[in-house]
């Protein structure tokens, strides 16, 4: 009965619709309209790109600039203050691009590590039962996340690092660590003969620990008995490596920096541009990460802690097995966007002259060659690629932490 009613209804609806469709113009009919709109959208986009492309070609021709990527093999002819691969003034623009790219990756990786560590510490401090610590953490967060990053970069670079003493009066800690207006000087590790052997032994013992952990987990799944693996693992990592260290006679020594003439020679130098940018990125991003950490931990229902305590788990395990896995679920997507922002923000390097991709390629190289379209497109493509890679990695990690619901 009901079914019949429904079919009568729909038949009625159909007649009404067909009658009204016959009356309305064809472009007002749902499907046609959608089609028309999309065709117009495509035509508009194509026309837009055609117009700006034609304008760009005629403008470039007038300025006498040939388009294409052949400039990448031309000689660049300028020096760069920090290069991770060999580079000099006779290198090509292609090489400049690589140097800038590596410097961008260096500052991004360092920044992500430092900001995550500091952010976690501040976020946990913000939740501390110690009133003073919690308030100090809150002040830290409120100050640094409400100041423009560029202002912070300038502050560290021009107001703090520029007011350091000259090399002759460096601040120093023993003979290992010097700080002056030219940068930070730290010892450089120099591997000697036998270092490769030490490395192999170390990696093998790490593999051994992993095997032990897997075996212990299988054992626990089978029998329910939890084996204490911490001490055994420590022994596996430390003992063979220590024996090899002494057997090969300590195959690593530290090259110290020392003042020769007006400047320091030897050792590793952290240029002030890198130090200022890293400081600013770390402090700024950590204040944002701290809030993410706090919201993640607070999002875990308090009953979870109580239930875990009722099961008799010790505090350490409650944190590791109950709270952190659930907090991570809330934190990871937000952390991902902070990491992406950090990579993008590393381009502020150009304001103080740290030689990152934007500074040496979209800055100096663009000014010298005038290949604006190619260079800007390449720079944007690099950031898009880095960011897509990070979000892909983080999404995979995120998928592993997601709640497995039935």
């Amino acid at each position, binding site marked *: 009965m009901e079914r019949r009613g429904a079919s009568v209804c729909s038949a009625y609806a159909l007649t009404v619709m067909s009658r009204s469709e016959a009356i309305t113009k064809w472009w007002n009919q749902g499907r046609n309209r959608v089609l028309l709109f999309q065709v117009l959208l495509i035509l508009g986009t194509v026309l837009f790109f055609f117009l700006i492309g034609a304008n760009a070609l005629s*403008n470039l021709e007038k300025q006498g600039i040939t388009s294409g990527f052949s400039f990448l093999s031309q000689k660049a002819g300028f020096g760069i203050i920090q290069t991770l691969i060999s580079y000099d003034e006779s290198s090509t623009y292609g090489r400049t691009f690589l140097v800038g790219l590596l410097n961008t990756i260096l500052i991004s990786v360092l920044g992500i590590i430092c900001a995550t560590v500091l952010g976690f510490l501040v976020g946990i401090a913000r939740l501390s039962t110690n009133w003073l610590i919690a308030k100090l953490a809150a002040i830290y967060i409120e100050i640094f996340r409400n*100041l423009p990053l560029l202002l912070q970069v300038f502050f560290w670079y021009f107001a703090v690092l520029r007011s350091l003493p000259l090399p002759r009066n460096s601040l120093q800690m023993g003979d290992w660590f010097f700080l002056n207006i030219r940068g930070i000087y730290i010892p450089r590790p120099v591997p000697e003969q036998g270092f490769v052997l030490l490395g192999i032994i170390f990696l093998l013992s790490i593999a051994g620990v992993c095997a032990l952990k897997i075996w212990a987990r299988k054992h626990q799944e089978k029998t329910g008995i939890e084996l204490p693996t911490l001490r055994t693992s420590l022994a596996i990592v430390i003992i063979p490596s220590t024996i090899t260290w002494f057997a090969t006679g300590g195959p690593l020594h530290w090259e110290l920096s020392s003042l020769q003439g007006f400047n320091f020679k030897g050792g590793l130098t952290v240029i002030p541009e890198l130090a200022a940018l890293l400081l600013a990125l770390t402090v700024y991003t950590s204040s944002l990460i701290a809030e993410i950490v706090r919201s993640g931990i607070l999002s875990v229902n308090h009953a979870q802690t109580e239930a875990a305590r009722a099961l008799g788990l010790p505090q350490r395990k409650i944190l590791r097995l109950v709270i952190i896995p659930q907090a991570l679920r809330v934190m990871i997507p937000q952390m991902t966007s902070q990491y992406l922002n950090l990579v993008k923000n590393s381009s502020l390097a150009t304001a103080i002259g740290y030689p990152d991709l*934007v500074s040496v390629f979209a800055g100096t190289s663009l000014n010298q060659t005038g290949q604006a379209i190619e260079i*800007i497109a390449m720079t*944007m493509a690099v950031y898009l690629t880095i*960011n*897509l890679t990070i979000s892909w990695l983080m999404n995979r990690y995120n998928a592993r932490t997601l709640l497995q619901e039935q």
Partner: protein
Amino acid sequence: MTRAHTPHSDLPPPLTSVGVVGWLRRNLFSTPLNTLFTLGAFYLLYRLMPPMVNWALLDADWTGTGREACSGDGACWVFVRLRFIHFMVGFYPEDQLWRPVAAFGMAGLLLLYLLLNGLPYKGWVAGFTLLGSPFIAFFLFYGGLFGLPVVETHQWGGLMLTLILSTVGMLLALPFGTLLALGRRSSMPVARTLSVVFIELWRGVPLITVLFMSSVLLPLFMPDGIRLDKLLRALIGISLFQSAYMAEVIRSGLQAVPKGQYEAADALGLSYWKAMLLIVLPQAFKTVIPGIVNTFIELFKDTTLVLIIGLFDLLATVQGSFTDSKWLGFTAEGYIFAGLIYWLFCFSMSRYSHHLEKKLHTGY
């Protein structure tokens, strides 16, 4: 023989668990580790605070008309005081200062009217603030009408430029971002793809490259004879960039509108645009107002980057004043002053967004 039980009157709580002592024990010295942290924090404060207060307030110089007024021990705020107008409006002619003051006064009064509770005609005032006041403000800044002399955009600067860049970027990003968000959730594959590509492209690259693009590439893309003003180019770049972020905020609002609301709009026979404008978007906007305020804060901080393409916003003006040979060596004062202004704007906006979040959190 039984003795009558006389209950002892309640003892007061132990002195060590109430009052100041109790608070200290609970909040600062509850465990040995906490005690250690507290003492460490106190030591840090002791080492940092007195020198900072001395430098910034007690030993500082406040009055004077030139470099001689700086005695050298503490901060020299004379530098900031003498350059205050320059920091606020850049190279805007001094005899025309009333114009930016009037424009910002108008904007301030309108905002105040909108923020206060329980005033009538808020809808009309909001409409005027969004659609009418920007044009009035533009003619006040630029001039050319009613006998006001023209002030070219390269003379605009300081905090005034920072505010112009961020509010115009925001006002343009709102409608454009809404269109993109609707496009991203549309059932039309072409519109959806174009929106996704647009949003992800701008969100994936740094603002600096967008600004470089707008300052270097836009002139190339223009037909012969059309020259875009530098400020206008920066505004186009910022608006494109901001629209992509705004689109994602609004999309999250659209997703939060229950499916039943879309269905109800369909059942009423409303067209797509009527359903969106009258039913879906108002609800979506209401849920994401805090998110919109947050992207505005981000934009406000990000406008500092225009100094890289040679526009003189607040930070660039302050930075530029350090090169004045009469006033070398006052970087710290300048940065602290600029930082204070940025901080006050951002902090009050973030407080306001918190307040909205609480106010709009109705039900469950």
